[in-house]
């Protein structure tokens, strides 16, 4: 018996997307274990799954990144209910689109710092707008803090993405040779 496994580009994209989805879920779970920082809005999170979305956009494509967002939202639907799912979806889609545009942009050439910050900011903005429809304009009181914090969290996720991507590329190059 000699089974030949052929890894075509399509299979590779499929498996990588699946892995990205799984990692995104795992990261957002782990993130929930981090206790709330003092002086910060309760519920404010680092947005580690943004790293995965950024990674999918760079290594794969926009549809794959959206796939991760959709998967995360559907997970939120089962675990935390409809409101959480819509919030996750609005933030995710907006941030993914903006990050994709910034990554596409060749001139000026944005670094991961800028992409991370823009992604974090847009995620917050999308969620806030969705929350506005659910509750009231009271949510916009959070806006200034969210802006300030998205610079910090974006810098962290951008750095994580930078390191991860370089490492992954090195591994894949060695693997291919």
């Amino acid at each position, binding site marked *: 018996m000699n089974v030949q496994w052929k890894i075509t580009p399509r299979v590779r994209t499929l498996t990588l997307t699946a892995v990205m989805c799984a990692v995104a879920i795992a990261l957002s779970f782990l993130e929930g274990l981090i206790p709330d920082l003092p002086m910060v809005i309760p519920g404010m999170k680092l947005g580690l799954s943004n790293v995965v979305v950024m990674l999918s956009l*760079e290594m794969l494509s926009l549809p794959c990144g959206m796939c991760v967002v959709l998967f995360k939202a559907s997970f939120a639907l089962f675990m935390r209910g409809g409101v959480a799912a819509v919030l996750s979806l609005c933030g995710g889609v907006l941030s993914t689109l903006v990050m994709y545009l910034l990554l596409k942009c060749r001139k*000026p050439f944005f670094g991961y*710092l800028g992409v991370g910050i823009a992604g974090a900011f847009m995620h917050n903005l999308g969620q806030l707008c969705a*929350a506005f429809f*659910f*509750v009231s304009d009271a949510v916009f009181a959070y806006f200034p803090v969210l802006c300030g914090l998205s610079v910090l969290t974006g810098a962290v996720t951008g750095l994580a993405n930078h390191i991860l991507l370089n490492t992954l590329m090195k591994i894949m190059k060695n693997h291919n040779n």
Partner: protein
Amino acid sequence: MREVSENRRRRYVSPADFIVAGLVLLFCVASVAMLFFARGEGELSASIYVRGELYETVELSSVKEPMEIEVAGKIPVLISVTSEGAEFKSSGCPDKLCMKSGVLSKNGESAVCLPAGVSLKIESTSSEPEVDAIVG
């Protein structure tokens, strides 16, 4: 599978990033300024909104003894109001984030319980111009 070639590899920091960071910080400062100027003087009151509609307003100065307001619904919420401020006392929501916001006492402060769709806001009764609603 898109390979990122050596010479086109993106760096962590590029000059254009500071434009992005600057813009976001500008939003931050601008929104702080807006919220600051939207604050009026006068009597403070605690308003409870349920799904965007005003549910109840309590003038803080008229509160002699701590009182509790219950918002019934799929997720029941208990809000306590004293002459000093108002807070989410308890909520049936899973994450209890609204309760962590603590006591709200200053004008413009607000807390939200998203799962229940209830928001609590400290407002000034004397000046409530219509534009503020749009600025939010």
